[in-house]
């Protein structure tokens, strides 16, 4: 049975605790717990299976992972007794500058080798299964491999699995004009272990991942496509803005629950 969960955010804490029966699992952001609030993680893990999701390990940066960041990440994963850990197929910094947000790399053998090495390093450091997530980007970086080929190779060579962000995939497909379902069908379905989803924004004809909107129908259709093809263990609803719209969040969780039920009934 595919679990339905939320990305844990502090403004949602009281609601999450009160409505714990409507959530099967939680995803916590590693960096939000660096150096603090391990006690809170201990409390959350008694109520929910926890996944630890990273934003700043910068797996695409050549050279060893930053030791202090990796150590703090590991401490959070241990405190959460994480079911798995996840990060992004991206870089956030070079040796000179921390850009602070996710950026794409060209899909070359060289960058593949960097990601494979770092996925293994993360798995070894945390002692946990690693899931890697597709990002949204305005910049097409090219390379000799297609994105699904790159992800398939990454899983095969590192032993990691995939966290497919349905919203990122949809946004990229609209902004860069490709077919999202065909993209998904090129993935090895056995590698897809988790989905992220949240509504998108559209401004001046460009799609954005502002993590602020209810899930739109075209996202649900793409999630249905993914669920019908892959052994997805969990779906995480990500919401980073407009936390006051609890009714929207509850409605989104209901939609995901209905979707999973319909897929499982028809299976």
């Amino acid at each position, binding site marked *: 049975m595919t679990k339905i969960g939320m990305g844990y955010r502090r403004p949602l804490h009281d609601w999450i605790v009160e409505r714990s029966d409507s959530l099967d699992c939680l995803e916590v952001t590693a960096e939000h717990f660096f150096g603090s609030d391990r006690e809170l993680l201990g409390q959350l893990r008694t109520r929910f299976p926890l996944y630890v999701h990273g934003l700043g390990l910068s797996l695409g940066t050549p050279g060893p992972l930053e030791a202090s960041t990796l150590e703090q990440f590991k401490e959070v994963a241990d405190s959460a007794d994480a079911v798995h850990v996840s990060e992004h197929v991206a870089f956030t910094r070079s040796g000179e500058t921390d850009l*602070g947000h996710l950026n794409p*790399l060209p899909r070359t053998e060289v960058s593949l080798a960097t990601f494979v090495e770092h996925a293994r390093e993360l798995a070894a450091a945390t002692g946990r299964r690693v899931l890697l997530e597709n990002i949204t980007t305005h910049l097409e970086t090219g390379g000799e491999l297609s994105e699904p080929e790159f992800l398939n190779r990454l899983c095969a060579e590192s032993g990691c699995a995939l966290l497919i962000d349905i919203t990122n995939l949809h946004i990229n497909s609209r902004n860069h004009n490709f077919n999202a379902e065909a993209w998904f069908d090129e993935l090895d379905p056995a590698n897809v272990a988790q989905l992220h989803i949240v509504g998108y924004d559209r401004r001046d004809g460009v799609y954005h991942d502002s993590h602020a909107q209810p899930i739109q129908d075209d996202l649900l259709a793409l999630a249905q496509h993914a669920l019908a093809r892959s052994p997805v263990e969990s779906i995480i609803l990500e919401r980073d803005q407009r936390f006051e719209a609890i009714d929207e969040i509850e409605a989104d969780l209901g939609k995901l629950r209905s979707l999973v039920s319909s897929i499982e009934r028809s299976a």
Partner: protein
Amino acid sequence: MKTPAPIDWVTAQTRLLRDPQLRAQFRRDPAKLARDMSLAPTDAALLAQLCPDQLDAQARALIDKRMHEAFQLLPRTVANLGSATRSLFISHALRFWPKGHQRHASDALAFCRSLPPEFRRFVDQGEVNRLRFRLAPAAVRFHWITRIGRSGARFLGVHVLFQLRRRLRQFQFGIALPE
């Protein structure tokens, strides 16, 4: 002329994303800039194929995300600064790149400190105190406040910040001064 040390793709892309002047050079002659950066030949060829408009869009998105995070920590200051806020933040953001997991708070604090003198009176001292507390937590901390409020009405008081049950608590007391 000394040949620059070879750099990797991530360093090259990062330099392009943080530097509008370098992106302007790239727009004029991508192949030349890729060669000048001393990238490996395969990386140089890929870099030269990047779309300048997409590079600009990605660079804008990075600044917009930073701005969004910083402004969530500075709602009163942003309201006080009004329409000037965005251009002031962009000017700050191109000169300063925060590091580490507290980067949003660092960015917001550095933004306040970067403001030209004529804009500093719009900074909400209470928000700055909260950022300082967040970046260097203590059991309790006291700050003098000499100005508060959107209108800039004069106020002399004390801002007390402390942690209770893992949450920042705070209160202020003082007196309003005659204009």
